[in-house]
């Protein structure tokens, strides 16, 4: 049985990549991702991981090198945070189109400006439509498990898409948690060596990344879209198998005390644990509130979501980013569009909080729930609101 050890979550992320026996790591340091790549370079330096560690000069080159390595048939890993992810942007969109099954951990951080090293989800929300599979971890154990799962899904011949595992910068990346660490041999049962379908090999030359003329481009994009949507089956199956082998089970959407709930909070990432405390407290006071969170963000689990909200009167969606000029947050917008046309829709109220490292406290969640109940009773609320803004 794997041992449970107290370890910093960033290091656990590196250990997961190590247990997956990655071949190439190309990364550039950026707070709060730094500990992940530092530890990986240590593991390589100590001979504990047989991989090429590429200390590239930028994240743009990190993603480019990852694509090259994956196209050569190597299992490839990288990690980054907001400025790095933004610098990669152009190349991030190309990786799925080339069907390169790269795994990337994003230690979520606020986008500049003003420059902030602290946590929110603006970095990943700017990349939400990039064609990658995207999951969100709530705690250190999930970070470890989701990375192993990511390789398994990415390299599935039916998928062959890159995967982003999101974890909150600092609030998750820099905390020490008890984590059950699987060893390489324990992982090997679940994750077979990468068997690439198409590689750059002089013995069998292929052309990758050709020009997409108007007669072909739509079909290429259609393929990218259908393979991403189709990946959900594989994602769920891989989670089920993970549960069988290691005893921890995961689902696209997780619910907490939603039975008979009047209002349900919707969250993503590590604030979920704070939200749970708030739910418990309010339940004690007799307020009928539950919690729901997305673990799978892309492909968006629309059926699961519609099923999960059946019978719920109101949703209070907590966004950690602003969709500038769109009057709301990206998650809330997606939630609304996913519900459009569905029978018995709950009312949806959007709240934006926890930007650039601002804490979201239990009290703030309570405030959000109270507001949502009030709006739901009235039958209307504001389009969205920022929680905890100081006006002066």
């Amino acid at each position, binding site marked *: 049985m794997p041992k449970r050890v107290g370890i910093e979550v960033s290091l656990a992320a590196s250990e997961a990549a190590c247990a997956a026996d990655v071949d190439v790591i190309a990364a550039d340091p950026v707070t709060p991702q730094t500990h992940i790549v530092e530890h990986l370079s240590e593991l390589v330096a100590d001979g504990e991981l047989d991989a090429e560690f590429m200390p590239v000069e930028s994240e743009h*080159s990190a993603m480019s090198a990852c694509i090259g390595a994956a196209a050569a048939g190597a299992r490839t890993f990288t990690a980054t945070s907001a400025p790095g992810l933004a610098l990669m942007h152009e190349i991030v969109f190309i990786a799925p189109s080339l069907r390169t099954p790269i795994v990337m951990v994003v230690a979520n951080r606020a986008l500049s400006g003003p420059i902030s090293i602290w946590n929110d989800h603006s970095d990943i929300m700017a990349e939400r439509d990039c064609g990658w599979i995207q999951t969100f971890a709530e705690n250190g154990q999930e970070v470890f498990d989701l990375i192993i799962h990511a390789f398994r899904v990415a390299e599935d011949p039916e998928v062959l898409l890159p995967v982003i595992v999101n974890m909150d910068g600092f609030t998750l990346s820099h905390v020490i948690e008890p984590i059950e660490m699987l060893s390489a041999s324990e992982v090997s049962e679940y994750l077979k060596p990468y068997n690439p379908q198409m590689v750059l090999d002089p013995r069998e030359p292929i052309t990758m990344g050709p020009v997409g003329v108007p007669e072909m481009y739509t079909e290429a994009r259609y393929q990218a879209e259908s393979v991403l949507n189709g990946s959900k089956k594989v994602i769920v199956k891989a989670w089920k198998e993970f549960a069988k082998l290691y005893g921890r089970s995961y689902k696209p959407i997780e619910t907490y005390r939603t039975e008979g709930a009047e209002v349900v909070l919707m969250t993503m990432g590590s604030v979920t644990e704070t939200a749970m405390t708030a739910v418990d407290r309010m339940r004690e006071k007799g307020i009928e509130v539950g919690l729901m969170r997305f673990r799978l963000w892309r492909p968006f689990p629309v059926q699961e979501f519609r099923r999960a909200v059946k019978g719920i009167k109101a949703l209070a969606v907590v966004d950690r980013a602003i969709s500038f000029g769109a009057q709301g947050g990206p998650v809330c917008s997606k939630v609304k569009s996913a519900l459009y046309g569905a029978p018995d829709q709950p009312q949806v109220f959007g709240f934006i909080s926890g930007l650039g490292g601002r804490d979201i406290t239990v009290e703030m969640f309570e405030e959000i729930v109270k507001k949502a109940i009030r709006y739901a009773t009235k039958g209307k609320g504001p389009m969205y609101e920022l929680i905890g803004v100081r006006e002066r």
Partner: protein
Amino acid sequence: MMDATPRDFKKFTRKSLPRVEALAQGHRACQGCGEILALRMALKAMGKNIIVASATGCMEIVTSSYPQTAWEVPWIHVAFENAAAVASGIEAGRKALMRKGRLRKQRTTIVAMAGDGGTADIGIQALSGALERGHDFVYICLDNEAYMNTGIQRSSATPYGAMTTTSPPGKLSIGQHTWKKNVPAIAAAHGIPYVATASPAYYLDLMNKAKKAAMIKGPAYLHLYSPCPTGWRLAPERAVEISRLAVRTNIFPLYEVVDGQYILTKKIKKPKPVEEYLKLQGRFRHLDKKTIQEIQDRVDREYEALVQKAAVAEAEEESTEEAEK
């Protein structure tokens, strides 16, 4: 070619030209394109045991219009500015797989190719990073002195005085008003084992340098003169002639930098005036006598500096020999 070293290097001769072609006929380059000519020669010299990472640019566009491809060797295109980074990833990936016993041990030449824009401007960071990290690969810069793919805009490799669509001559402008960036010198400053310039008019020289670059372990940088009749307003049948004139006027000197040592590979005893080179090209048509003289002076000075660098190195070697005696 496994484990061949530069010592095993056998020069191509007129009689032993390689027959292999990595690029098939029927690509879409313009008539008389000197860029595809230079590329084809370099590829012939390197053989088919190669993997190519290409930047966006003319060569990428004209060879890879899906569902067709002109490539008979493995080839990948990702973006405009990252050919060196992609190539370095391919090299690292293969290295790891060979070490871990998942890929047959074999030395394959990894090639990154980009235009002057993809090299001197937007790709210089990725290039510098890959050279500094010491990957075993060959970087080919195909220098046609502007962004041809997007419609002849200036780059930092566009020569002084040249007309491009973003360096137009006008009442207040002579055209390009900056001097060409010296990218081979920048590459050499990384302390890499091999840097060379070559021109398709001297095809044996070009092919031999390409072959050498492929054999050398570690990063090698090739800067290939690539005349573009379309962008230079040059008669298509004159691409080779202009490639020769560029060398004979000392505008594009041919040299190698081997482990930091400059070696002139073609010494020009009686250089032709630059005007002979300039007057064949519409992009220089607007230049007056004074500007042409300015260009002549600069070319003379730069060539002299290059000769000095090469000569100084020789002189130093002699004096150490003296000291040892």
